[in-house]
């Protein structure tokens, strides 16, 4: 099951590259290619890690950490009565 998922992810990434990189090369958009490959590799790596059930970070935890000092105030504000 995990292997099938990993193969699917790699197939998707490969298909994506095949479709998009020629277009970007034609327009000679170097920044595009750089950003695209960075984001795609980040996505593939994180996806594979997730399939293998490693813990990857969660953005909502990041926001909760940023606003953790305000939690007390919010609880008071949103308490009933």
């Amino acid at each position, binding site marked *: 099951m995990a292997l099938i998922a990993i193969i699917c992810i790699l197939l998707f990434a490969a298909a994506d590259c095949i479709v998009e990189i020629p277009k970007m090369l034609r327009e000679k958009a170097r920044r595009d290619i750089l950003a695209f490959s960075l984001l795609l590799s980040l*996505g593939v790596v994180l996806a594979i890690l997730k399939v293998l059930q490693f813990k990857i970070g969660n953005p909502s935890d990041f926001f909760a950490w940023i606003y953790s000092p305000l939690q007390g105030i919010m609880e008071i*504000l949103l308490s009933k009565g």
Partner: protein
Amino acid sequence: MIPSRIADLAGPDVWISILLGAVAGLPVIWIYAKLGELNPDKTFAEILRLYLGKWAGGLVALFYILSGLVLTTQISWYMGDFVRNEFRSDLPIIRINIFFVVLLAFAMWCGVEAMYRATELLYYILFSFFIVTVLLLIPSFKPEYLLPIMENGPVPVLKGSIPFITDCVLPLVFLNMVYPVCLENVQEAKKALFKGYLIGALTTLIAVTTCVLVMGSSLIANVRSPMYTVNKEISHLVVFSRIEAATVAISLGVSFIAAFSYAYAGVLALAQLIKVKNYKYLIPPIGLLIILYSPDIYYNTVHEIQWDSLTWPPLSFTLGFIIPGVVLTIAVIKKRKENNQQSGNQAK
């Protein structure tokens, strides 16, 4: 979810809470309108970099990008969770989310104009569904559910307007990526912004009041999707029963439009930050990331309720009011300085 949170805090006075929230939201919309008027050819990300400087503006823009994409992921989670809870509970949530995100990616690929024209069409259909369901619920209205007006004083009413402001008003900041740039006539754009806001507030008012009138605020406060539950009460003739499917359609359509707005804001802002030529190349990787994070962005329903009530209000307040307010102040001061300099030069 919004009606249940407002009903929980405000009791039977939900309609006063929403009216108050709508009025309190007018200055917020005014800030966005004014910012757009001062910079009619820039998106919000460019405005941020213009007024806050390259590095600080870039950091703040990154914050907006992350928030926009997180909001998109949250909406996919809501969809998957809703389908799991109400229909089939054995599908892994990621497969439902994949449908949603793939459709979203396709919409972004087609571009803004195509999506917003589709939104117009969807709006007519969904709004008529909405009106029909509300009209069909009128026989089940029990006005005594609204009755003890301000029983506990004004404080619960004020507390009840907080979910409305944080969920229905402040996220409109993400429309600033679209608002000044894509529209030709700035004055008409301003009017459209206000009109849209008021119509949205009115719709929320009608929806929440209908829920409370049919089932009472204490029941609504404990129900996950009140409109869906309330619409199960419709069963007049054989034809008009099981109309809750219309509510599902409405919530699906509205969530899609909202998710598109957030995702488009996030992707376009990222594209402008990195100075990429065409934002469409960034869509598949970001779509992959959204699908990846969507089952776990909220660990479970308890975490969702907790995050939405405790972390989202300060976050939305920062994103939607504080930062735009600061940027507007800087913009106005700069404009005054420019005007003074110009009149100084003319005087010379």
